[in-house]
């Protein structure tokens, strides 16, 4: 999957609407996720951030269009979207608890394996898996069951699983929620390192984290895009301050 950067390696969402039996969780959203930058998606609870990601990864049905590599993600099944190079994590870390860290990564790396090859045991650690173990800092824990990992480590493992798949687009849903300050910093640095030519979209509540690492921010509110821009641009935006009331105003005065 690791091809050169082609001009279609970005996600272009146009007029996306997700309708849950008459309730429009998302309405007419236009947003473009470009590679090479940490794109943060923020907004109060119920703004539609996770719903947006759900629609782009095949978990919910949406109308409109979401083009990536000349294909519309909206009509595709979840596993087809993954094969196209779009991966995601979930708010609650969901790794395979009984399987080892290595097995977790190996399973993720196996997406393109032929069915018959699956009948053989893994003899060596694939090079890509080895690299990713180093990148996410879990090499020492490779043979431990993923269930014993600390919360932050599970989130890194999930990111690692997207890395071994060489996902070109990663949607990370509240990755740093519940992490310690050190873990947050570690996560931020990890995301910086892997961003490269990838498209990384981070859904976040944590304003400090956003301020430290965001290259670009999209603010959502009540199912619509409220504002877009760099951190300082959106902090200066009165409508954003209004939605966030104290929160952003405080961040603004600090920053």
């Amino acid at each position, binding site marked *: 999957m690791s091809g050169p950067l082609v001009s279609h390696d970005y996600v272009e969402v146009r007029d996306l609407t997700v309708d849950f039996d008459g309730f429009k969780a998302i309405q007419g959203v236009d947003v473009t996720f470009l590679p090479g930058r940490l794109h943060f998606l923020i907004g109060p609870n119920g703004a539609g951030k996770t719903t947006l990601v759900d629609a782009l*990864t095949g978990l919910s049905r949406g109308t409109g269009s979401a083009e990536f590599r000349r294909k519309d993600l909206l009509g595709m099944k*979840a*596993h087809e979207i*993954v*094969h196209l190079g779009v*991966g*995601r994590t*979930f708010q609650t870390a*969901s*790794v*395979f*608890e*009984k*399987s080892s860290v*290595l*097995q*977790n990564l*190996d*399973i*993720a790396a*196996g*997406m393109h*394996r032929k069915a018959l*090859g*699956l*009948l*053989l*045991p*893994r003899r060596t650690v694939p090079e890509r898996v080895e690299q990713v*173990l180093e990148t*996410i*800092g*879990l*090499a*020492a*824990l*490779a*043979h431990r069951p993923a269930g*014993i*990992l*600390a*919360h*932050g*480590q599970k989130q*890194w493992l999930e990111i690692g*699983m997207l890395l071994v*798949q060489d996902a070109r687009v990663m949607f990370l849903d509240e990755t740093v929620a519940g992490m*310690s300050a*050190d*873990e947050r*910093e*570690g*996560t*931020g*640095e*990890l995301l910086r390192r892997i961003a490269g030519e990838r498209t990384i979209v981070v859904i976040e509540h944590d304003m400090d984290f956003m301020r430290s690492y965001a290259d670009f921010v999209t603010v959502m509110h009540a199912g619509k895009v409220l504002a877009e821009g760099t951190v300082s641009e959106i902090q200066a935006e009165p409508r954003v301050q209004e939605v966030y009331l104290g929160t952003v105003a405080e961040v603004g005065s600090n920053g």
Partner: protein
Amino acid sequence: MSITTSDAPEVHGAEPAAPEAALSPKRSFRSDLVRTYGPLLGIGVLALLLLVWAPGSLSPFRLGNLGKYCCWALAAVGIGLAWGRGGMLVMGQGVFFGLGGYAMAMHMKLEAAGPGKVPDFMQLYGNGTMPSWWEPFRSGPFTLFAIIALPAVVSFVLGYAILKRRVKGAYFAILTQALAVAFSTLLIATIKQTGGFNGLNTFTKFFGQNLYDPAVKKNIYMIAAGLLIVCLVIVWQLYRSRYGELLVATRDAEERIRFLGYDPANIKLAAFVVAAIMASIGGAMFVPIAGIISPSNVDATASIMLIAGVALGGRASLLGPAVGAIVVGYGQTTLSEQFPTQWIYFQGGLFIVVLLFLPFGITSLLPKLKELASRRRITGESAA
């Protein structure tokens, strides 16, 4: 979550993590060897017991009984794969046991009737004409083919319909259980074609061999026990393969598997089909050993008996299901000799007790015992 974050290697910074990072991911060669081939040793011991010790020491009657348990164990090995590793509580394996059993019984019935003749019960209950779908079972090779192909096709179609609709958990269990009920009801209702409630019995020959010859009986036992060992080796290979890892991962977090680009239905379907084929082989070997196959061998109760053995032995372990099925089979024989009508309550009670107190079966006691022993050793050392 026993590990605190301070133990974790820091993710940021490019400095290579201390020496332990270089050492600990490589487990010792010996422990790898034990992990990989230890189970094979277990299969070897079981093979010695079943193929060498038993034929030399047991009376023909007891050996025949053990043969029956081996047939149930064949189905149980498949259940271990589908339920223990795949998370599908297959409550209707009697259906597949029956497909193989009836295929074999039809062939043996036609063999007993002789070339061009019609099975006796068709003259008794019907007008003496044989349904056309019986005809191919005159051929031995066709019958052997059908014993594999029939359950494979049926389980594929059923499994595809059930698993693609993402039916799981209790709904899956109830659905498969209902299939077993429907299958046995269908058999009972079609007395003219399948022998109905009485099933198919009074065979004389097994692929040309005289069924009353003790040497032939012993050979049939050896085939059944040998097939059990072969299936255990197949399952051992599946468990250590990447497919086995994938199946366990699907059992534990199906949605995650979907978002890693796999279709979990396909992964589970493969295990379901393999389990069905193993049950069918068990059913097919059951017929020449028991001398009968009837709806009571394939109905919901029979299916639950298979499950009870697997639960007792330990559904996710390699040998647990087979050993559990043999133990439950033995228990059924001995207890039902003394309490013919109460056996079924013993069986139900056993199932409940095991699932309540030993959800991973007797084999799950082994690691616990080991742990206990090593703990005692450690406390002993520290005391000394």
